[in-house]
């Protein structure tokens, strides 16, 4: 493989029912930064039959959009998606190809990487360009939870990575930007009987998506029991906040999986994140450290969570939380956000 023949940065956009998913704009922000560092073009591939408003992708920083269309690509199916992307990459030859670490990105990118016999790094929290070698540095939390690993793909192209959703801000919108939108019609690929999409069922029971909450109160094992964890839920209710949980807490059954924040759960980026009784393993931090303001409450002054916190209280949650709730209830003229039912647990 002559790696010199590969130029440019490509991101994989996502759509649902023809609407561009916001995670696409986060990728464009990442991609623009990398493309500028390399002095190359940024392209965005997006698969699906009819997609509204592809110019929005240009406004958000792409120089080119490849809309890959075909009857087999209407909804996500790993096989057809992967085959289309392998073909696109072979035609366009980007040196870097990144996708979001969503259920789609985490499924299709390994197929594409295996098809192209190149490397792939999952769940990166940081992407950068090595100044000297001009190659991609992919950084992700690694084994055990307290270290980071930086990985490169030196000999093969493209250099591929998935990045945590919400680990970057959406790209700035600029309507004066121009770019090229081209349609790749791989329509000859027939709808295959090997994989058949049957239905999408929205999850009615799925409680609030905490990804969208402005404030999140999250609890960890320091709360000792399920009853202890209720303090976190109570504070969340008072603040109209979403409830988050560490992996330990979900494993213990005090909270359900949709509340799990961290590498194996959700990544959130709220205006305010209050971590209660959470020690702050890297895996958890990976899911919340881009929050605007972080408050940590923990008994252990050495807890790692304090290192990412803007404000920390060293103390027992069972003392601090009742006091805090008391003060919030009594504070005259307080300006609590509207606590909508949606945001409660």
């Amino acid at each position: 493989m002559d790696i010199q023949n590969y130029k440019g940065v490509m991101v994989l956009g996502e759509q649902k029912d023809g609407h561009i998913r916001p995670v696409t704009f986060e990728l464009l922000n990442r991609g623009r930064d990398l493309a500028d560092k390399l002095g190359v073009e940024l392209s965005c591939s997006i698969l699906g039959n009819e997609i509204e408003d592809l110019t929005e992708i240009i406004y958000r920083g792409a120089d080119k959009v490849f809309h890959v269309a075909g009857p087999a690509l209407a909804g996500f199916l790993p096989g057809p998606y992967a085959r289309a992307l392998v073909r696109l990459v072979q035609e366009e030859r980007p040196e870097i190809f990144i996708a979001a670490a969503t259920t789609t990105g985490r499924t299709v990118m390994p197929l594409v990487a295996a098809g192209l016999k190149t490397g792939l790094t999952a769940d990166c929290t940081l992407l950068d360009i090595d100044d000297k070698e001009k190659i991609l540095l992919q950084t992700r939390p690694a084994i055990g939870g307290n270290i980071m690993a930086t990985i490169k793909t030196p000999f093969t192209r493209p250099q591929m990575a998935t990045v945590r959703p919400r680990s970057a801000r959406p790209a700035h919108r600029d309507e004066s930007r121009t770019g090229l939108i081209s349609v790749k019609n791989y329509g000859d690929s027939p709808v295959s009987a090997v994989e058949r999409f049957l239905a999408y069922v929205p999850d009615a029971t799925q409680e609030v998506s905490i990804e969208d909450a402005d404030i999140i109160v999250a609890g960890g094992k320091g709360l000792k029991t399920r009853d202890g964890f209720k303090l976190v839920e109570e504070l969340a209710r008072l603040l109209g906040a979403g409830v988050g949980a560490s992996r330990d807490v979900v494993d213990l059954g005090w909270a359900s999986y949709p509340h799990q924040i961290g590498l194996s759960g959700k990544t959130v980026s709220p205006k305010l994140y209050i971590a209660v009784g959470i020690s702050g393993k890297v895996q958890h931090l990976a899911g919340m450290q881009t929050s605007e303001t972080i408050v940590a409450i923990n008994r252990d002054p050495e807890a790692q969570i304090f290192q990412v916190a803007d404000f920390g209280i060293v103390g027992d949650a069972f003392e601090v939380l009742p006091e805090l709730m008391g003060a919030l209830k009594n504070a005259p003229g307080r300006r609590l956000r509207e606590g909508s039912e949606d945001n409660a647990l």
Partner: protein
Amino acid sequence: MRIAVLIKQVPGTDNVKMDPETGVMIRTNKGNIINPLDENALEEALRIKRSREDVQVLAVSMGPESAMKAIKEAVAMGADGGVLLSGRAFAGSDTIATARALAAAISKLGDVNLVLCGERATDGETGQTGPMIAATLGIPVQTYVQRLEVADDAVKVERVVEGGFEQVKVQLPALITVVKGINEPGFPTLTGKVRARDAVVPVWGADDLGLSPEELGLKGSPTRVVKIFSPKLSRSTLLHRQDNTGRAVNELLKFLADRDIV
């Protein structure tokens, strides 16, 4: 029907420590467990075995020789047998090289209709190996599966995605990665344990798989680890100690008010 379950031996959660001097992870063999989601995959295979005639469940693992313990545990839980990929040539494999080896092993087993594994392992957390094996074998894959229905030549799955579930039907042979909610893993039984102790589980090396050393280990891996470091977490933290004066909470409220949050 033959089902291959991919199991990875991982450190039990309390079993990983960092060397405070070097920042390198210290791993010991003792206290290792089967990756929890792979236990769900195994349980799903055993569930299928209980519900149909003529199902054979084989546990496949790649790792050091001590990973034999994980395969024996799978046998004790009810698997019919297994195979361990072990040897120098495999050391240092990234996900692509690992997938190549495991795909070769599945081919060598022959007539595998269904491959099951956990959606990710608790140590690496990449979730890449499963789909990469499917791509290498050229069979369809479904990920994040929380419900599985098997027919003779196809499976119907329900996968958990952002905001809901997708129902998909794929033809066999196929590879399915499962999430925690799919079932509740069972336990090995005493008879299973005794059976596992006596079971002969073959160990295959690169030669057995017909793979050259160039395709495996570090040589067969497109990615390289450049560096490992402790994260620098950079926020300047205002730290207050809880006492009985209510001062810390008051400071917090003032801080949040200053930032126009609460």
